[in-house]
C-alpha cells in the first residue's frame, strides 16, 4: 500500500481585497461594488503516490506550488478538490524558527514546541537532554529565548522537530540550518532517518541535492504538474535544461529531448572547460623558464600518455 497518495489535489487561493481589509471597508466596497477577489490555483490536479522508502524531490521555480502542496500533505491545509491519504506519523521540517515565545526560556520553549508537534510529555522528558545536546545549547537552557542568536533558534527548532523517528519526513529547504559544523550534523541526522526506511519528501532549489537523495521527482510549474517520474536522472537533466532555456516541456518526448540537450550542453561545457585549461597550461609553459617548462611538459606526457615517448625517455621518467 502506498504511504502517501495524492489524487487530483487542487488547492485554490483567494487573493485580492478579502485579505485584511476589515469589516467597515468590506461593507463599503460591497455597497459601492468595488469589491473584487481573484482566485488562483496554487496546485492543480497533482497526482502521485509514494511507497515506503521512497524519497521524492519536488522541483520547480518560485511560486510553483511546492510549499502549498507540502502544507496539504501535512494537513495544515485541506485540498479544495481531490484527496490526500497518508499512512503513519509525519514530521514536517518546514521553516520552523518562527513561532517561539521570546519571553520564555529555552527549556520552556522546547516543551511547548514539542507539545505543538504532538509529542507526549513522557517523550519530551526522555528526549529533552538529547535535544539540547544536539542543538548545542547546553549552557543556555535557562536563557530567555530572545537572548539567543538566530542560528541558535533555528538549531533548537531543527533539533526538536527531527528527534523523532517518523514514518514520513517532509523537508522544505531546511538542510541549510546553522553554521557549517551544524549543517554537517543535521545532514547526517537526516541521512540516518532516511536510511531507516522512512518515506520522504524534499523540496530544494539545489538540484544536485535532489539528485543525490531522491529516487522520484515531481516537477511543478505555476501549480501544474509537469512530471512525476521514478527516473530522477532524466528529470533532473530536463529540469536543469529548463532552468537555462525557460522552455517548458509539453509531453514526455519533450522531456527526453530536454534531457538529451542538457547532456549535450554538459558535454560541450566539459570540452570547453578542458580547452581553456589546456590553453592556460600552454601559456604557463611558454612563460616559464625553459628547463622547468620542459620538465613539467615531460611529466604531464609521462603521466597521461606515455606511449607517445620513446623507450629511453620513458625509463628516464620512471627514474625521476
Amino acid at each position, binding site marked *: 500500500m502506498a504511504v502517501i497518495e495524492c489524487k487530483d489535489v487542487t488547492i485554490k487561493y483567494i487573493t485580492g481585497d478579502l485579505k485584511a*481589509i476589515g469589516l467597515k*471597508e468590506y461593507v463599503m466596497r460591497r455597497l459601492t461594488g468595488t469589491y473584487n477577489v481573484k482566485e488562483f490555483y496554487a496546485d492543480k490536479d497533482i497526482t502521485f503516490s509514494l511507497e515506503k522508502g521512497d524519497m521524492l524531490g519536488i522541483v520547480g521555480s518560485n511560486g510553483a506550488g511546492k510549499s502549498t502542496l507540502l*502544507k496539504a500533505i501535512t494537513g*495544515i491545509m485541506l485540498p479544495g478538490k481531490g484527496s490526500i491519504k497518508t499512512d503513519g506519523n509525519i514530521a514536517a521540517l518546514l521553516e520552523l524558527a518562527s*513561532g517561539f*515565545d521570546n*519571553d520564555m526560556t529555552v527549556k*520552556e520553549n522546547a516543551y511547548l514546541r514539542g507539545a505543538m*508537534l504532538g509529542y507526549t510529555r513522557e517523550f519530551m522528558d526522555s528526549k529533552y537532554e538529547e535535544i539540547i545536546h544536539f542543538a548545542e545549547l547546553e549552557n543556555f537552557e535557562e536563557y530567555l529565548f530572545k537572548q539567543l542568536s538566530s542560528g541558535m533558534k533555528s538549531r533548537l527548532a531543527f533539533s526538536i522537530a527531527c528527534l523523532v523517528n517518523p514514518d514520513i519526513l517532509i523537508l522544505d529547504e531546511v538542510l541549510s540550518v546553522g553554521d557549517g559544523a551544524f549543517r554537517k550534523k543535521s545532514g547526517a541526522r537526516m541521512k540516518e532517518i532516511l536510511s531507516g526506511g522512512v518515506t520522504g519528501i524534499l523540496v530544494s532549489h539545489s538540484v544536485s541535492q535532489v539528485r543525490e537523495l531522491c529516487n522520484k521527482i515531481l516537477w511543478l510549474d505555476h501549480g501544474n504538474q509537469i512530471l512525476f517520474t521514478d527516473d530522477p536522472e532524466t528529470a533532473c537533466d530536463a529540469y536543469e535544461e529548463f532552468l537555462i532555456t525557460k522552455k517548458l516541456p509539453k509531453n514526455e518526448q519533450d522531456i527526453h529531448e530536454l534531457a538529451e540537450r542538457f547532456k549535450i550542453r554538459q558535454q560541450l561545457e566539459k570540452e570547453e572547460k578542458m580547452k581553456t585549461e589546456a590553453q592556460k597550461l600552454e601559456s604557463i609553459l611558454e612563460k616559464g623558464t625553459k628547463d622547468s617548462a620542459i620538465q613539467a611538459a615531460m611529466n604531464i606526457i609521462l603521466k597521461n600518455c606515455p606511449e607517445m615517448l620513446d623507450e629511453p625517455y620513458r625509463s628516464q621518467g620512471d627514474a625521476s
Partner: protein
Amino acid sequence: MTVLRETKQSIRRFAKNQFLFEELVKRDFRQRYKRTTLGMAWSVLSPLLTLLILKVVFTQIFGRNTPHFTIYMFAGVIVMSFYKEATKKGMTSLLANASIITKINLPKYMFILSRNVSAFVNFLLTIGLFLIFCIFDHIQFGWHFLLLIFPIACELVMNIGIGMILSVWNIFFRDTEYLYDVFLTLLNYVSAIFYTVDRFGAKMQSIFLLNPVYVIIKYFRMITIDGIIPSLQYHALMIFYALFFLLFGLHMYKKYNHQFIYYI
C-alpha cells in the same frame, strides 16, 4: 448513540492534546505575569482600583443610598471584566499564533481554550476578593452562596463560545477588534453596573434580561445582597445563553476552521 460516541471521541482527542493544553496554559500565565511578583497582585489590584473609583464617584459625589452599593457595583465589575478579558483574549488568540498555525498541524481551538483558562483563574482570584468584601459589608453568608458556581460556570462556557465566534470573525475582518471595543463600551453602560434598574418600568426591566452579562451579574446580586435563589426559569435562561453561544461558536469554528490559513 452517535452523539455519545462522538463525545467519547472528542474526549479521547482532547486527552491526546492534554500536554499541548497544559503547555499553552503555562505560556499564557507566563505572558500574563511576565515573571514579576507584582504581576499576580496587579490582576487583583486592577479591579480593586476600578471599584474604588466607582465607589468614590457614585457614593460620595452622587450620594447613592442603595443598600450594599459597594457589593452591588463590585458584582457588576468583576463579572464584566471577566467577560471582557476572556472574549478579547479569545478573539485575538488565533491571529496571535498565526506563525504557528501556518507551520504546524495542530488543533487550533486549543489556543482559544488556554486563553480562557488564564482569564478564568484571574476571575476566581477576584471572586475571592469579592467574598472578602462581602464579609466587610456584613452580608449574610449561607449555603446558597454555593450556587454562585452556577453563574461562574455559565459565564465560562459563554465566554469560550463568544471567543470562538470572535476569533473567526477577527481572522476574516481584522477590524473586529476595534469594533468590538466600541461594542464593549456600550455593553458596559447597558449592564447596570453602577446604577439600579428599579427606576425603569417592568417592561424595560425584562428587556435588560436580553443581555446575558446582565443576567449573570443579577444572579450574583440576588444571591449575595438579596439572599434569594433565582427561579428555575432564570436558571434555564442562563443555560440557554451559555449553550447558545457555545454551540454557535463551535459551529463557526468547525465551518471555517480550514479556511483560516488563507487569510493569515
